[in-house]
């Protein structure tokens, strides 16, 4: 579906909008490129001159701290100029359309848009209407996709586990509203894991979720049994208002990850969370800070993955290679 839009005829990443539609080899290339960038953080001067003179615009129509700052750091480490636009409080509230905002930024000679938007499909829309020289990276669109988050999660899993094919991965929580989960499911299946399970009450699962290639579980003890990786998802505050879930308390009782219900997972299972964590809702502090948790490594890897994706997309537009 988005293949034609995000991959050019030579197989290069013109935009990075969605994990769906990308081949295994392309996902591996992103992780390999991130691997080559991860040592930059250990240098005394944490910069490479790859994107000198390029302008990256962080176009965030929805509030974000972690994603925006890691994109900013990634662009800076690649020596790009970065412009942070918190559009949620500027142009669109004055009635300017998304398309007009884009045209104005293009007129300022931006080379790349990193887009976060509350509506599914927003990044596709921006990519479809952006000038040909502009690359677009999806930093999260509605409930649809968050491909850089999914790739940093894959990168983290690969660093700890090595191979994907023997793995059973369980994703716990609000799948229905989670762009992270959708992108993770596509990435895990493309990378060939043995099984992807989703664990949630029916109100937090989209109908026909099985079609995405997952096993559905409603019982967390069954769902995490023999799992190698357990990913917990953030539960937005507005989901706890009694319409989808009766209470935060019952959610934690049934779906909160604790040392107790982790007991059925593999002994070397790792615990992940895209952040920010609601302690005592998605997981307890013992689990979040415990030895199985790789949550802070995920954050660190976010910078390398975003450097990789930014450089690959920029290279597809300038005709240069990333290396």
């Amino acid at each position: 579906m988005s293949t034609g839009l995000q991959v050019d005829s030579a197989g290069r990443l013109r935009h990075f909008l969605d994990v769906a539609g990308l081949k295994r080899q392309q996902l591996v290339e992103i992780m390999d490129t991130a691997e080559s960038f991860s040592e930059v953080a250990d240098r005394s001067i944490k910069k490479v001159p790859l994107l000198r003179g390029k302008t990256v615009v962080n176009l965030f129509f929805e509030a974000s701290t972690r994603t925006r700052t890691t994109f900013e750091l990634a662009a800076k480490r690649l020596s790009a100029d970065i412009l942070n636009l918190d559009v949620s409080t500027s142009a669109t509230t004055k009635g300017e359309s998304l398309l007009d905002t884009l045209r104005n930024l293009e007129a300022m000679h931006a080379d790349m848009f990193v887009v976060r938007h509350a509506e599914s499909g927003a990044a596709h829309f921006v990519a479809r209407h952006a000038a040909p020289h502009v690359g677009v990276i999806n930093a999260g669109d509605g409930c649809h996709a968050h491909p850089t988050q999914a790739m940093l999660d894959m990168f983290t899993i690969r660093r700890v586990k090595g191979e994907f094919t023997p793995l059973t991965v369980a994703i716990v929580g609000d799948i229905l509203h989670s762009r992270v989960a959708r992108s993770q499911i596509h990435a895990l299946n493309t990378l060939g894991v043995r099984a992807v399970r989703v664990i949630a009450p029916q109100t937090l699962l989209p109908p026909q979720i099985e079609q995405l290639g997952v096993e559905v579980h409603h019982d967390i003890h069954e769902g995490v049994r023999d799992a190698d990786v357990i990913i917990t998802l953030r539960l937005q505050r507005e989901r706890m208002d009694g319409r989808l879930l009766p209470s935060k308390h019952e959610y934690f009782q049934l779906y909160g990850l604790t040392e107790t219900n982790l007991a059925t997972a593999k002994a070397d299972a790792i615990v992940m969370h895209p952040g920010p964590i609601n302690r005592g809702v998605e997981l307890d502090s013992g689990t979040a800070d415990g030895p199985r948790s790789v949550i802070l490594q995920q954050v660190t890897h976010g910078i390398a993955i975003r450097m990789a994706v930014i450089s690959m997309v920029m290279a597809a537009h300038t005709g240069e290679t990333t290396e």
Partner: protein
Amino acid sequence: MTRWQISGGRVIDPAQGIDSVTDLFVAEGRIIALGTAPDGFAPDRVLDVPGQVVCPGLIDLSASLREPGQEHKASIASEAAAAAASGITTLCCPPDTDPVIDTPAVVDLVSHRASAVGLTRVHPLGALTQGLGGERLTEMAALKAAGCAGVTNLLHPIRDTQLLRHAMAYAATFDLTVFLHPDEPWLRATGCIHEGEVSARLGLTGIPEVAETIAVARDLALIEHTRVRAHFCRLSTAAAVRLVAAAQAAGLPVTADTCAHQLHLTELDASDFDSLCHVLPPLRTQRDRDALRSAVADGVLGVICSDHQPHEAEAKLAPLPETEPGISALETLLPLTLRLVDDGVLDLPSALARLTAGPAAVLGSAAGTLAPGQLADICIFDPDRPWQVDTATLRSRGRNTPFAGWEFAQRVTHTLLGGQLVFALDGPG
């Protein structure tokens, strides 16, 4: 007035069960004979149309004209021209105007503008509740007297079931047909595409099938209770069609339609976030589409309408959930219906019945037939005149169609309205 002899065409009039190559004679704006000319008839003009199909002018039960109030999208003049070029000689405009068609004054405004333009007959539908607000009944008797073909609340919810019951009972009092858009507002909520595999994948809020079926089931119970004559608009699901079929079999006074795009597109067409496929009700599954096709074939759905909703370009230039729903559909109504014949769904006379006699019956109108004595509203199309939908050459001001690039074999060549040539593809000649 011009006296016409329309000569050598294949005359198909589903209402009379006529399908034969014959001549048609028109005088004083009316059809005066089929087959042989009346004694002493001397035509002013002979329209020689061998190989072409001559049928009653098409009747479209739903075409938004955007006037008054949304003239940046379209106007009565622009859309009437598009209708004429599409063989449509009668259309119902929904009350989604600004102001809403909820008083005789607005009915008069629309009717006068339409007659001044004169390219197609426009029958306004009145609002069922004031301002479509779902809280107070309109003056339905006055709306009927002003010429409203029926009353409807469109997709605007009537949350109070007691009020809906009263609205139906009041409409029944004045023998007005209620046009129902079955939609349970709490279940539709903020949904924008069908709830199913595609919505799960795209992370778009879905509209479940039950949003339609619950409303149909509730409305059928109220129809049985009030005995109002009701017409279900834009059915989109197999389950709703089953409910309506059962009600018809049980003798309830209900008719139903779907729109042409529901018979050709499915949820998969929106799977690339294509805002041109953002419609309400949403495009459903292949299974639903097939059930709608069967229902059109067996007559449970007696009408195919365009559900024409012209938009300015900007209305579709945003992420899909933020775009306005609807398709500019007048110009594809006939070709999409005729494609059903090519696809083996139904035969040509039956297909034309869904655009002529079927909607005429819903409106209780004498139009939709070529019977002598009737107004000479006539559509003539060439079944072998290929064309391609090109948004640049659409006559409608709305260019919002997902059918751009589609190729069709059949093309309207002439449209007569009350004996006046209101459209000729190759010029008035």
